């Protein structure tokens, strides 16, 4: 099977651009060109639905901007926070988004470090989530400031001893690191885009890819350098990620308030971050897989494996919660008694038990039984986990502030429309940037998936044909003729 030269196939390219989908004439057989075509399709053309989606997101962000304008003009009085509960939705969402950002670290770095390969097709999405979640999360402390006009004071007068400064340094370091870690594996894919999108691509796109591809030619020397760089980043990003969420937990546990005065917060928050990060990947995976028709490359195997990781992390979260609540509950000092009463029986009881059962127990059960261990089941579990983890952050922040310090009645907190609007705007911003990314960057790391497949085919490993892989076998990814691969390997 030969791949014909470019230039005569404008019709197909036009078809690609007009409808966003490949035309009826399609290269048959070749698995790699299929992969490339499918993954690069969004870059090649955009349909009206996409612009509608963008417009919707921009509208939500605009509404959030309007809400923030109210806050800028009148002060934080427009929120529901007051002296006794002085942190609310903003800090909750801050912790939540930074938590999600651990998705990329886990998948790209940790799994790569232990030489797992099944996650190759989703590392790019995971890295997307990391970078975007960090960008959105880092906005929240700024939104929460009473005097954002004095932001520069942190730089000029910053104190090393303050947990908030640790946050600033850690998030800046992690954001830089994950941007680098996103960019490094993108270089060969950018080169692919530069070479393969054809002259019909608009000029800005061609120039863009020309620049960011860094002159990648796939030479052995370049590959060696890239491998070296990726190894460095893989090793560095793991402790950085762990330190980021530990340091974020320390803005709470460095205080003397009773529910916060706990030594286990660092580990608790890191576990929770990885937990919610996995859930975020699963959800994004499911969405992009459906929208961009990547069913061939993101299979049930990825979902089930991630689902197992989710269940494992749920078990770890159960352990951390037990550690926390059993030890403080056994001793039950006065403040703990108030906290438990509010959390488990009182005002937060509904949210708390939803978090425990919906967020920890049900996802574990879903993964336990083969009947529910499907893509749909895993996505349901992940959605539950995402909602439950946001609620858990809310319970930590607001629940912690609700314990009275002196002889007064516990205060109430009710977020206002401003806070909800800004939260919605943050989610919309998250979705917006990811949507833009899908148009700029290939959502699957093509060269890595190809590498993995070549490796598998070359070692002629027979993949077992039981349930998990039945889908992938049907979709033609399992048994790729060695001859075809050999032909493609010489391209």
């Amino acid at each position, binding site marked *: 099977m*030969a*791949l*014909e030269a*470019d*230039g*005569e*196939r404008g019709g197909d*390219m036009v*078809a690609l651009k007009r409808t966003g989908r*490949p*035309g*009826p*004439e*399609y*290269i*048959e*057989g070749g698995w790699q060109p299929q992969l490339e*075509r499918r993954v*690069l399709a969004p870059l*090649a053309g955009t349909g009206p639905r996409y612009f509608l989606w963008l417009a919707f997101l921009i509208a939500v962000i605009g509404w959030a901007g309007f809400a923030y304008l109210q806050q800028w003009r009148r002060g934080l009085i427009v929120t529901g926070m007051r002296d006794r509960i002085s942190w609310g939705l903003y800090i909750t969402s801050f912790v939540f988004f930074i938590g999600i950002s651990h998705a990329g670290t886990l998948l790209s770095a940790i799994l790569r470090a232990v030489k797992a390969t099944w996650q190759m097709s989703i590392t790019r999405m995971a890295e997307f989530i990391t970078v975007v979640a960090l960008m959105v999360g880092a906005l929240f402390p700024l939104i929460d400031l009473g005097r954002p006009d004095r932001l520069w004071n942190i730089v*000029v*007068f*910053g*104190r*090393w*001893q303050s947990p908030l400064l*640790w946050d600033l*340094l850690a998030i800046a*370091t992690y954001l*830089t*690191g994950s941007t*680098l870690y996103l*960019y*490094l594996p993108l*270089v060969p894919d950018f080169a692919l885009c530069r*070479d*393969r*999108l*054809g002259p019909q691509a608009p000029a800005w796109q061609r120039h863009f890819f020309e620049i960011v591809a*860094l*002159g*990648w*030619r796939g*030479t052995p*020397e*370049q590959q060696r*350098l*890239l491998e*070296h*760089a990726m190894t*460095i*980043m893989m090793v*560095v990003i793991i402790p950085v990620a762990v*330190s980021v969420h530990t340091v974020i937990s320390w803005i709470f546990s460095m205080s003397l308030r009773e529910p916060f005065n706990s030594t286990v917060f660092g580990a608790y928050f890191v576990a929770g971050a990885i937990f919610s990060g996995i859930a975020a990947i699963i959800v994004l995976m499911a969405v992009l*897989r459906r929208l961009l*028709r990547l*069913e061939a490359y993101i299979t049930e195997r990825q979902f089930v494996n991630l689902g197992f990781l989710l269940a494992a992390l749920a078990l770890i979260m159960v352990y951390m919660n037990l550690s926390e609540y059993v030890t403080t509950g056994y001793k039950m000092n006065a403040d703990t008694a108030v906290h438990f009463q509010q959390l488990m029986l009182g005002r937060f009881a509904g949210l708390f038990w939803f978090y425990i059962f919906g967020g920890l127990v049900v996802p574990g059960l879903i993964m336990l039984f083969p009947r529910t261990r499907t893509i749909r089941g895993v996505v349901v579990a992940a959605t539950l986990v995402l909602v439950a983890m946001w609620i858990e952050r809310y319970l930590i922040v607001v629940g912690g502030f609700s314990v009275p310090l002196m002889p007064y009645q516990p205060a109430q907190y009710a977020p206002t429309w401003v806070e909800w609007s800004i939260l919605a705007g943050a989610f919309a911003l998250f979705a917006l940037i990811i949507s833009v990314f899908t148009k700029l960057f290939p959502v699957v790391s093509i060269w890595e998936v190809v590498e993995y497949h070549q490796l598998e085919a070359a070692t002629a490993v027979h993949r077992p044909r039981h349930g998990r892989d039945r889908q992938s076998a*049907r*979709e033609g990814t399992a048994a790729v003729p060695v001859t075809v691969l050999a032909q493609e390997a010489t*391209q």
Partner: protein
Amino acid sequence: MNEISCRFSEPTRRGLLALLALAGAALPMAAQAQTALAPTAIGIGVPSQAQLGQLIPLQARLVGVGGVPIPKATIYFTSPTTFLNVTGDAVLAEAVTDAQGLATASWRATRTGGLTIQAEFRGDDRYAPAKAAAPLVVGGERQLYVQQVGVRIPALNTAPISGLPILARLWPGLSAWPIAVALLVVWSLYATVVALLWRIAAAGRSVPAVAQLPSLTAGTGSAEGAEVQQ
């Protein structure tokens, strides 16, 4: 009220004091004594000079009629003080007289200058009140009260007095060094990676450009029959 107090001039007071202390006479000097209460007299013994911060012994002897010592009586050692424009007798110490009528206490000198130390017996249902005074000059100059902060870790749990730019604070902080070192390590690794990227770009420039690869959508092929919608 039997009082030997500062109403008198200084030399007179000193003289009377010495007289009483030596003779132990108990003759009351003031006018109407309450008929129900037995007259008492009190003498005070304090050093005349002390240093700031020094522990000063205070003594007082309470005697009744005929010089008989009065035991188990509470003596208050006070000093007239002016603090924030309020004047009053501040109680420095208390002591109970023993069988010899002697009460001893001590006071750490925290004020400088010419002070007056008084010994007061406030009277009870049997005995009349009595009061004696003596001068004390406290000299010296040092800060006595040092703030206690428990375990004091430099730059970790001690607060800055005033703000300093972040760079100037790099020196003294114990907690600053681990943070600074960790950041330095991580960011220099980032710099290494960026340098590697630079080298990748340089290596790319030196390779001659390959002929344009076939466009993705070139060629014919069968329909995507192999595709299965989920």
